[in-house]
């Protein structure tokens, strides 16, 4: 059986950052990803990121991805692409399928950085071609350079919905409206303003009632919602569209963590069931760590910091960093994480994360 010191599942921002941090301390790292290309969702992000210089602020997501990849290469990390981790057993054996062949990889430590999956929204007509996740749209327009439709309605006004709507405009589509069930816009006002000054309305207290069409989406029926989120009869309106994009949140991709026997807690602010973890990002199963969206839905910027934290903690646990060296490095990362979670938008996550990590520390 192949062996490694640290196996990382998922080569997105968290996994890449962890690999760089651990490998630069001397850890032998194997990074496994089911996709053909590493980078997770980073290469789809054509917008400039928020934050400070240390968070790569004002740098476009795909440029951050390129930087991380070249660093991973420089550190001599072994990268296995097109490789699906289908199981995790005992003290850290991963079952991996690559090129239709099954292999096993034994690791002293495992970091699960599997990311998240988009939430769906069921409504009459939701299975028609043309109803798709915002993430799928982003892949099509920004990676494959294919515009899947001409007129879109976006469901959800969180940052994903707002950003992807803007990118649809950049790609040459029309965005008829962004629809939000809550009475307030979910994402950053500046993202909303970019859309508004390009003439895109944002309809709050509104949802999609139905997608109409024979072979594909031809119309979207919207309806207003009352204070209790009930549809208000008679407020329906129809729009001719060929795309209904869903940006209604993400859920941690947690199958491997469940299989490994990690204890979970249900925390809506973090996207659902999240593995309990301590300040080192270690779960309730010794030797198994989590980082990024799996550890609670946040941003790529926080995923990178959590990845670094896990990478440092693992290097320390394997004896490559002294407790003193690790402490200094971890404190620097924690400071950056704290600064990113400040303010009204980070408040709910900050509190939820603290609650989860208190539980993790006790265990």
């Amino acid at each position, binding site marked *: 059986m192949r062996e490694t010191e640290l196996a990382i599942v998922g080569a997105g921002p968290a996994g890449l950052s962890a690999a760089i941090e651990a490998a630069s301390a001397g850890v032998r790292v194997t990074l496994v990803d089911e996709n053909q290309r590493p980078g997770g969702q980073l290469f789809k992000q054509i917008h400039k990121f*928020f934050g*400070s210089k240390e968070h790569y*602020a004002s740098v476009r997501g795909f440029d951050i991805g390129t930087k991380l990849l070249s660093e991973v290469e420089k550190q001599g990390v072994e990268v296995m692409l097109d490789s699906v981790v289908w199981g995790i057993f005992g003290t850290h054996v991963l079952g991996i399928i690559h090129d239709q062949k099954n292999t096993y990889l034994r690791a002293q430590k495992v970091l699960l950085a599997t990311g998240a999956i988009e939430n769906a929204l069921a409504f009459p007509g939701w299975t028609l071609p043309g109803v798709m996740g915002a993430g799928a749209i982003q892949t099509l327009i920004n990676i494959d350079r294919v515009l899947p439709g001409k007129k879109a309605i976006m469901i959800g006004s969180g940052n994903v919905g707002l950003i992807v709507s803007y990118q649809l405009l*950049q790609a040459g589509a029309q965005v008829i409206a962004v629809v939000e069930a809550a009475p307030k816009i979910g994402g950053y006002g500046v993202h*909303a303003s970019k859309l508004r*000054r390009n*003439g895109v309305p944002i309809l709050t207290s509104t949802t999609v009632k139905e997608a109409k069409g024979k072979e594909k989406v031809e119309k979207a029926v919207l309806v207003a919602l009352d204070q209790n989120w009930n549809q208000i009869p008679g407020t329906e309106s129809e729009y001719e569209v060929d795309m209904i994009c869903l940006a209604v949140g993400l859920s941690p991709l947690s199958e491997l963590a469940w299989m490994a026997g990690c204890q979970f807690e249900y925390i809506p602010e973090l996207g659902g069931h999240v593995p309990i973890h301590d300040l080192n990002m270690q779960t309730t199963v010794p030797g198994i760590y989590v980082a990024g969206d799996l550890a609670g839905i946040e941003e790529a910027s926080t995923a990178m910091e959590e990845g670094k934290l896990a990478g440092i903690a693992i290097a320390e646990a394997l004896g490559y960093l002294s407790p003193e060296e690790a402490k200094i490095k971890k404190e620097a990362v924690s400071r950056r994480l704290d600064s990113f979670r400040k303010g009204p938008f980070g408040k709910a996550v900050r509190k939820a994360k603290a609650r989860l990590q208190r539980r993790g520390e006790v265990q």
Partner: protein
Amino acid sequence: MTLEKDGFLSPEELTRLPGIPSAERLEQGPVAVIECAQEIPCNPCEEACPAGAIQVGEPITNLPVLESDKCTGCGLCIPVCPGLAIFVVDMTYSDREATVQLPYEFLPLPQKGELVTALDREGKAICPARVVNVRNPKKFDHTAVIAIAVPKDKAMNVRNIALIRRQ
């Protein structure tokens, strides 16, 4: 009308922001107008300003404060703002016209001298505008800065231009 409900800043919200220069300062020449109203963790504008006229400080969720006396209106803060929320207004451009510099991330770019349609924060066409400058150096990383001349009374409402259609 509020940013949270409607997606753009109302006149009342704008007056409360620490990044908006006074009417007196606007009359004195080009100056940044920072329409950043929510405490999000972000500070590239602070570092981008060669005159030290933008303060965010700690924590980085502070709203940017414009020291308008120091601001030269160079516009280097415009392309670094990930929220595309910074503009430069010059009320002294001519007797009747002011210029507005705005961030623009669509192709094709307008050309210097071209006549375009100026839009307000809601995307409504409010007046014709003339493109007086297009800056798109590598350093701006694909956020071009377009300067347009508009009637003075429209300068604090114009925040975009309509997409350019070419055959």
